[in-house]
């Protein structure tokens, strides 16, 4: 009897014993730079090797390539066959940029920094808007959790990665400190827009300029900045979109926003206070957008921070901007940036390469593939005046597509 009482006791002991549930994860530990050091004027140095992809931007005959979190490469692209690396602007925390006239606007973690680039070999920091992007954080290697941040210690300018084991039980959660979508803050650019005084970025940029206003999106917040006087930019109240905005694309006086859950249209009738016009929703994913005529082209993809299960090109009729409608969908592999120039629609389809489609009929464009460069893991593209600049995971390529059936490689550079 004693034995069975013992067995019964052991059974009850197991029954009362909860499973040990442990979360094993990598946590980003913030590395701080004090504010005074952080805000020392950015310096311009000699050319540096381009070793990673980032936001690309063209202005006149110049090409700018953002090295995420490090700075901007200045390249004289007068002869695309022989681009000339002019130098490197050391700007910590830079992931996006835009140019209007002789001034370059770029983010530096939490600040907006403005440079006079009258001399491209001697850009000078002329003003700085402090704390415009309070949520900005350094790029992280992957989608990791973030340890609590104490802003009193300075600006978070880097991460240290630490393996963490914590027992939470089934209901526990990792301490997520933020930075969902940090990689989208990181780079990307290239779409069409611009007056002659502004440049042109890729399709995944978070900076865009419409007339005298620079618009910068920081997660779901759109910041209107009047840059009539670049030396004294005027900051207006932020516009809260309520969505995770990843890309901006200007079209006339409209701002098209690619968000993780759809495309938003805002007007800039009052440029200091953009107003919501309409939207087209989709499943959670990443989606840059470009616009030409009455159609918007959106690539929807899944990825590291882009949840969901869809990878496709969507064509949206925006002839009535108050009631945009999705009119066509085409399956893609893992589309990133895109660009359109006339009837030429370029899709950077991840590992499936760079693809060119005939968009003369937008409703069937995805079925009319003209070219595919499968050796290029393309991320973003600027197609302009029959000249395409493509940035990929491992290099930069420039093409002459004046004859879409006969692309001419002008130059290429591997990281």
């Amino acid at each position, binding site marked *: 009897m004693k034995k069975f009482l013992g067995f019964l006791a052991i059974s009850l002991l*197991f029954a009362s014993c909860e499973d040990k549930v442990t979360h094993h994860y990598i946590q980003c530990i913030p590395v701080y730079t004090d504010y005074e050091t952080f805000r020392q004027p950015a310096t311009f140095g000699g050319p540096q090797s381009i070793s990673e992809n980032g936001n690309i931007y063209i202005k006149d005959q110049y090409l700018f390539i953002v090295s995420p979190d490090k700075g901007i490469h200045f390249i004289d692209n007068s002869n695309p066959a022989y681009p000339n690396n002019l130098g490197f602007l050391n700007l910590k925390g830079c992931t996006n940029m835009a140019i209007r006239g002789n001034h370059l606007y770029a983010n530096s973690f939490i600040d907006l920094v403005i440079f006079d680039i009258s001399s491209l070999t001697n850009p000078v920091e002329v003003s700085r808007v402090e704390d415009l992007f309070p949520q900005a954080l350094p790029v992280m290697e992957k989608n990791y959790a973030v340890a609590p941040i104490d802003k009193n210690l300075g600006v978070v300018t880097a991460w240290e990665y630490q393996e963490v084991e914590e027992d939470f039980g089934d209901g526990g959660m990792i301490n*997520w400190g933020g930075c969902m979508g940090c990689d989208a803050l990181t780079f990307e650019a290239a779409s069409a827009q611009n007056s002659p005084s502004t440049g042109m970025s890729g399709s995944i940029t978070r900076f865009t300029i419409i007339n005298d206003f620079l618009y910068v999106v920081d997660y779901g917040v759109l910041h209107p900045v009047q840059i009539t006087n670049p030396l004294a930019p005027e900051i207006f109240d932020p516009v809260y979109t309520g969505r995770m905005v990843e890309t901006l694309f200007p079209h006339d006086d409209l701002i098209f926003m690619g968000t993780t859950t759809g495309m938003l249209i805002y007007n800039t009738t009052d440029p200091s206070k953009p107003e919501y016009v309409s939207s087209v929703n989709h499943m959670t994913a990443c989606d840059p957008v470009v616009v030409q005529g009455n159609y918007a082209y959106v690539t929807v993809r899944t990825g590291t921070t882009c949840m969901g299960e869809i990878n496709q090109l969507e064509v949206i009729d925006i002839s009535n901007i108050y009631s945009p409608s999705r009119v066509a969908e085409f399956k893609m592999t893992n589309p990133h940036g895109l660009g359109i120039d006339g009837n030429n629609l370029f899709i950077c389809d991840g590992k499936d390469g760079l693809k060119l489609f005939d968009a003369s009929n937008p409703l069937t464009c995805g079925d009319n593939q003209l070219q595919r460069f499968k050796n290029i893991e393309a991320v973003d593209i600027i197609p302009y005046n029959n000249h395409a600049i493509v940035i990929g995971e491992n290099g930069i390529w420039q093409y002459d597509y004046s004859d879409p059936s006969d692309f001419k490689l002008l130059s290429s550079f591997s990281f």
Partner: protein
Amino acid sequence: MKTGFLLVILFAGCMCFAQTGMVVHLKNGSAVRGELISEDSTGVKIRTRDGSYYNYSLSEIESIEKFTPSISKSGFYNKTSVGVLGGAQISGSLNVVNGYAFNEHFEAGFGLGIESFVWDPYIPVFLEGRFNFLTGRTRPYVSATAGYEVPLIDIGNMLGGLTTGAEIGMTHYFAQHVGISTSIGYRFLYLKERSWWDDSFISREMHRFEVRLGFVFR
């Protein structure tokens, strides 16, 4: 009540399938197996399986004993069992072990099955070693298992993990090739599943007691 239930489970193999067959050993060296119809001071009457009746006087009989099937000392065996795993959660288990008996004491086998933990199904793939204390029809034993729980759904996110355990139990052979086995034991599991975040996973250390009932074929 609970103790009573466990008693029934533990000794079910002993209580069920009790033998009624007898064997009459004769002095001439032969033996007759059947149902003992009568026994008195003069002799016995026995009915064999084919329905024949035989009478033997006491002078012819060497001994009378209950029939004990002879169980092969070595060879392949199969054990199929169902069980209940208890602890923080209660779940079911079905295992099939195919193995080899090296002798009457030592057996080793390879097992597969299906089990459930935290509402997710797994296929246990494991090795089992067993030691029988006795060699008769009823064999108390101890066994140990070690293996891997392979997730059956959401493969990629569910990573499975290690399983190991030990049992004490009893096998009762009610026929030459068939027996029933009951056991109680302990299982430890270390299962992993991916989390939402990159390079992160959740591990579960689980302790379970188990009660099993199965059939053995050898």
